[in-house]
């Protein structure tokens, strides 16, 4: 899981153009949206594409998505459970 979390942090920095941040700046449990990293609905859509492309997971329910994207911790455990790649 630790490797996956680090991988996710790197992906987020790359895919969402957060070049001013490094992996150390993103903690496992801090909120990703609104406060914390301050991501928005467009970022959520980008993460949905990433889930499909890199892990083979199709996440279509916006309510479920909200919970999954709450933090790196949540995201990593969701991927662990559901990944096809």
């Amino acid at each position: 899981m630790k490797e996956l979390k680090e991988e996710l942090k790197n992906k987020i920095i790359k895919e969402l153009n957060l070049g001013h941040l490094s992996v150390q700046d993103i903690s496992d449990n801090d909120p990703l949206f609104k406060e914390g990293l301050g991501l928005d609905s467009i970022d959520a859509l980008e993460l949905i594409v990433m889930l499909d492309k890199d892990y083979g997971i199709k996440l279509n329910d916006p309510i479920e998505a909200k919970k999954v994207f709450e933090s790196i911790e949540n995201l990593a455990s969701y991927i662990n459970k559901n990944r096809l790649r």
Partner: protein
Amino acid sequence: MNKICYINSASSISSQNTFKNKNFFKEIVVSNERTTPALEPNYSEIISKISIRRMSKITKMGIATAQSALKKANIIMPDAIITGTGMGCLENSEKFLKSIIENKEEFLSPTAFIQSTHNTVGAQIALNLKCNNYNMTFVHGSISFELALIDSQLLISENQANNILVGGIDELGKKIVDDTLKLENHYKNGIKAPLSEGSHFFIISSIKTSNSLAILKGIEIYHKIFENEILNKINLFLKKFNISEIDVIILGFNGDIWDKYYKILTDNLFKNTPQVQYKNISGEFSTSSSFGLWLGLELIKKQNIPKEVYLNNIKYNKINTVLLVNQFKGTQFSFILIESAL
């Protein structure tokens, strides 16, 4: 009925070192390259990290020059934001299109699509300022910028706005520009000026200030003008303002066969007028006439014509009245007349 429109500030990012550079006239570079990218400032000093992360080049150039124009004119909130762009957000359009084709319509980036609409720059400027006022984008080739200017004049004459942020912006993109070059090289007399990009923003205002750069006396556009009509059309245009003599004429020569329109003017009516070109230094792009306007304002400010752009090198006493003429392949004609505000 027509209120006077002042140009109270101007800002440029172009393939020359024009952003906030007072020494530009001494640093002009004439390039032989077929494309010349813009010389961009360090945006981290201008745009916050959180905002900048999604922005494509055209948006960054637009925001930087818009901010600069506002600051120079001491305006915090413009009454309207009007932009002109010929090709819009090419980078993002191409990125999205390429991925549709390469990924066979899967795993596409929503950001690229969202940022590909033509009014993205105008919208981002409004978002940055939290400006709820009138916001318009014109997309019509080489008169995109002029249409934005005309709209700003109209707003002022309607008493709907006093200070309007008006800009012309275009970016090179990646593949469409290459294909455009291939096409131009294929023609016997294609475009010789480099293909380029840039962003030019101005504050057009009903209020004269001590910093007013010029008066925007008149502007007209035409879809089509025949060769045997152009002299007459220019005469009629100038007659409207009781102008019999122009101090400088700025022409959009780009080296292609359609330069013949400018030649008709320089061989006849403007034979003895100082003649200036600009696309040899700004490059050709849909809104390059906004560089032309920016240059015209610099000529009035500095009362000097740099040799790199001066075509006929004749003596001049003053530069007060400047006429700009542009067209693209025999369509999209524009005449802009500016006069010193002093």
